[in-house]
């Protein structure tokens, strides 16, 4: 069966520091991968999605970036964190069928920027 992992689970970082969040999927190949951010009491904001290695689509311009170095690995990064980057970051995957099949979510990473 497929599983999705995210780490770290929680992270506290100072303003201006770099960020690297990792997401990996097991048990499938060629998945579509997504990064969402959920601010406190808010809905989900799609940040990036990827349909293949090295292919990244950005939905919201900001100081974050994403990379997909391997088929089942998706990384969210920042060179300098802002206070507004605080939130709950969720990674999700779908089967890469060219249509919006069911999304399966990871457990999330709670990021607090101080």
């Amino acid at each position, binding site marked *: 069966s497929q599983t999705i992992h995210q780490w770290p689970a929680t992270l506290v970082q100072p303003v201006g520091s770099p960020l690297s969040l990792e997401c990996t999927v097991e048990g499938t190949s060629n998945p579509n991968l997504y990064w969402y951010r959920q601010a406190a009491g*808010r*809905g989900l904001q799609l940040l990036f*999605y990827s349909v293949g290695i090295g292919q990244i689509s950005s939905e919201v311009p900001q100081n974050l970036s994403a990379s997909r170095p391997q088929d089942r690995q998706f990384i969210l990064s920042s060179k300098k964190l802002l206070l507004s980057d605080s939130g709950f970051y*969720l990674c999700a995957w779908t089967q890469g069928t060219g249509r919006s099949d069911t*999304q399966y979510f990871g457990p*999330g990473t*709670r990021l607090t920027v101080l």
Partner: protein
Amino acid sequence: AQSVTQPDIHITVSEGASLELRCNYSYGATPYLFWYVQSPGQGLQLLLKYFSGDTLVQGIKGFEAEFKRSQSSFNLRKPSVHWSDAAEYFCAVGAQTSNQFYFGTGTSLTVIP
């Protein structure tokens, strides 16, 4: 443009009472429709989904939803709410011809004894 609206930001129901969470969507073609539930500090768990066929779909934990094309709605229902159902609920729409997903802003459910 595609969008999903959940008109109720917060709902409070008594344990044992029935529940209906509203979801309206805007999409130019036949959508794929989903309901997810999120407990505090957790990821999203799929409750149910509609792709085609019978417009009344059954999900996990006793939930069901009905797709009404004429009303562009996909409301979630449960006949008798349990205290453990307290959570955030998200409606989402996907496309048959793209990889895009659109989520509503969520409805927070409180269950009182």
